[in-house]
C-alpha cells in the first residue's frame, strides 16, 4: 500500500513534455521563436552579426538588470513603479556630485546607492505600515522622485541634461566594472547574467526564496506559519531600487552624461518582461529565468525591427504583434505540454 500504490496512479509522461511545463522554459521557447523570426527575415541584414547581437543583448541586459529584482518583488506580491524614476534620479545624483561638486566617481556612485536603498526602504516601509497597495505608494514615488530629479537638476545646474562626465569616468577604475567590455561584449550583459544567476539561486535554493514565494502566495498564511513577510518585502523593495541605481551607474558611465528623463517607462517594461516570463501579477508564482527571457524577447523585438528594414512608422505595431505572438507561443507550448 505504499510505493506500489503511488506508482499505480501515475501515467507515463515524456521527459521533454515534463520539462516544458516549467514556466521559464515556455519563455525560452518564445525567445527562440522571436530569434528565429529575425534570423530568417533579417539574417542577411546584420541581425546575426556580432554587432547586431550586441545591440539587442545590451538593450535586454539593461532591462534585465532591473527586471530580475522586479520579478522577485512581484513574486512576493508587490509592485515597484518607481524604478524608472530611480534610474533618472541616481544618474543625476552621480552627474551632479561629480561635475558640479567635484566628487570622485566612486563617492557619487555610493551616494546614489545609498539614496536608492533609502528610497527602497521608504517604499517598503510605507507599504507595510499603511497597508496601502504598493501600486499607489510607488506610483506616488514615481512622480515625486522624477519631480525631485527635475527640480534639483534645474535648481543646481539650470538644465535637465548634464554632460561632461566622460573625462571623469573614462580613466576611473570603476569604468571597466560598469561600462567596459570583455571580448567586445559590454559588461552590462555580464551584470545581467550575474544577477539572473544570483536571483535564481536565492529564489530556488535559499530559505529567503521560499519566503518570497510564501509572502506573495498568501501573506496571511505565510505570516501565520512564521514567515517575516514585512522584512522580506522591504528587503526586496531595497533590491529593486538598488538595481535601478546600478543601471543608472552603467548608463552614466556608458553615456558620459545623465538626463532627468532616463529610465522613463522602465517600470512598465520590467513588469512586462516578468509577466512575459510567466510571473503572476497577483504574486506567488514565477521565476527569475522567465523574467530574464522576457527581457531578452523585449530586447530582440525592439532592436530586431531595425534589421528588417520595416518602415519605422509601423514600429510599435510590430512590437505589439511580436510580443503577443511570443507570449501566445509560450502559452501553446505550455498547454501542449501539460495536457494529456
Amino acid at each position, binding site marked *: 500500500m505504499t510505493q506500489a500504490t503511488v506508482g499505480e496512479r501515475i501515467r507515463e509522461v515524456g521527459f521533454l513534455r515534463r520539462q516544458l511545463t516549467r514556466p521559464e522554459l515556455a519563455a525560452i521557447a518564445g525567445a527562440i521563436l522571436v530569434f528565429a523570426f529575425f534570423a530568417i527575415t533579417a539574417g542577411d541584414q546584420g541581425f546575426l552579426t*556580432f554587432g547586431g547581437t550586441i545591440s539587442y543583448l545590451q538593450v535586454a541586459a539593461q532591462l534585465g538588470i532591473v527586471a530580475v529584482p522586479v520579478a522577485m518583488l512581484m513574486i512576493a506580491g508587490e509592485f515597484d513603479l518607481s524604478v524608472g524614476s530611480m534610474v533618472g534620479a541616481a544618474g543625476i545624483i552621480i552627474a551632479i556630485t561629480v561635475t558640479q561638486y567635484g566628487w570622485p566617481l566612486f563617492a557619487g556612485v555610493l551616494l546614489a546607492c545609498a539614496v536608492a536603498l533609502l528610497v527602497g526602504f521608504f517604499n517598503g516601509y510605507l507599504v507595510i505600515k499603511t497597508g496601502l497597495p504598493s501600486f499607489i505608494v510607488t506610483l506616488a514615488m514615481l512622480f515625486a522622485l522624477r519631480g525631485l530629479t527635475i527640480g534639483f537638476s534645474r535648481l543646481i545646474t539650470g538644465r535637465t541634461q548634464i*554632460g*561632461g562626465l566622460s573625462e571623469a569616468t573614462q580613466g576611473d577604475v570603476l569604468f571597466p566594472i560598469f561600462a567596459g567590455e570583455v571580448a567586445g561584449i559590454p559588461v552590462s550583459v555580464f551584470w545581467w547574467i550575474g544577477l539572473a544567476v544570483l536571483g535564481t539561486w536565492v529564489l530556488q535554493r535559499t530559505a529567503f526564496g521560499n519566503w518570497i514565494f510564501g509572502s506573495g502566495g498568501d501573506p496571511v498564511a505565510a505570516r501565520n506559519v512564521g514567515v517575516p513577510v514585512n522584512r522580506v518585502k522591504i528587503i526586496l523593495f531595497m533590491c529593486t531600487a538598488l538595481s535601478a541605481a546600478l543601471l543608472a551607474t552603467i548608463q552614466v558611465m556608458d553615456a558620459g*552624461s545623465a538626463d532627468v*528623463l532616463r529610465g522613463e*517607462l522602465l517600470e512598465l517594461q520590467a513588469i512586462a518582461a516578468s509577466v512575459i516570463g510567466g510571473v503572476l501579477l497577483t504574486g506567488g508564482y514565477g521565476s527569475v529565468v522567465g523574467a530574464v527571457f522576457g527581457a531578452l524577447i523585449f530586447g530582440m523585438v525592439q532592436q530586431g525591427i531595425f534589421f528588417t528594414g520595416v518602415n519605422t512608422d509601423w514600429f510599435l505595431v510590430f512590437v505589439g504583434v511580436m510580443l503577443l505572438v511570443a507570449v501566445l507561443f509560450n502559452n501553446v507550448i505550455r498547454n501542449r505540454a501539460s495536457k494529456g
Partner: protein
Amino acid sequence: GCGQQGGQQEGEGEQGGGGGLVPREEINIEFVTHASPDPFWSVVQNGVNQAAEDMGVNVNYRELDSYDIPQLQRNLEAAIAADPDGMVVSIPDPDALNDKIREATENGIPVVVINAGENDWRDVGALTYVGQTEYDAGVAAGERMAQEGVRSALCINHEQGNITLDMRCEGFEKGLGGQVKQIAVQPDPTAARNGIKTALRQNPDVEGLLTLNPGIADQALRALEESGRSEDVTFATFDLSPSVLRAVSRGEMLFATDQQQWLQGYLPIVLLTNYIQYGVRPVNTEIPTGPAFITEENAEQVIDLSRQGIR
C-alpha cells in the same frame, strides 16, 4: 584645425564612396535621430521620404517613442551593425553619442549630422551639418518678440526634461533679454489649456507667450481668448500647422518659427547619395535651415504646404 580634419575626411571618403559605380537602388541609408512622432519631426520624415523617392535610394528612418538617450545609443549601434552606405544622425547629447558616431565614420560610413550637433559634427568626422540648433531658434524667436516690446514672457513646456524643449526656452530667454518663466504643462490638450489659463491669471504682468508645439499653441490661443488676454499678450509658437498658420494670418499670433526642417530630412539624403556615388560634398561648411519666421504676411501661402506636411 578644421581644414586638416576636412582633409582626412576626404581621404576616407575616397575608400567609402567614389567611383560612381554604386547603383542608387542598392544604397542603404540609416536615419537615426532623437526624433519622436510629433509635428516637427513628421515634416522631417516627409522630407526624407521625398528625397528617398527622388534619389531612388533606401532610407531607414528611425525614431524614439520618447526622449531616451540610452535607447538612441542602442539604435546607433544597431544601425552601424547593419553596415549601411551612409548615416544621418543628430547629436542631442554629445557625451553619449559622439563615440558611437565616430565609430561609424572611422569604419568608413559617411555621416551627416542634422538638427542638433552644430558644435560636434566636425569632431565626429561627419561630412556636414544641416539645420539649426534649437537654442539658436529660441534666440531668434526671443529677439523677434523683443522687437515687439515684450519684456517678460511665459514659455510653455509640454514635455519636461526633454532637452530640446529646454534649449528652445533657454534660447528664448537669451534672445528676449527679459524675464522668461517656464511653465510645465501636461501634453493633454484640456489639461494644458486649463493650466495655461491659470498660469496667465497667476502672472498678470506677462506680455509674451511662447509655445513649443502647434498642438499646444491651439490650446494656448483658446486660453488667451477665454481669459480675455488676447489683446495684451503677444503670442508665438514653434513649428507650424494649418490651424497655427490660420491664426497667424488672422493676426492672432505674432509669428510661428519655421526651422524649414523639411530640408533637414531632404538635404542629407541628397548629399549622401551624391557623396556615395560620386564622392562629392560641400567642403567644411554647415547648411543652416533657419531661422525663418512665418508672419501675417506670408502665412496664407504656406497653409497648403503645411497641410501636406512640408512646412
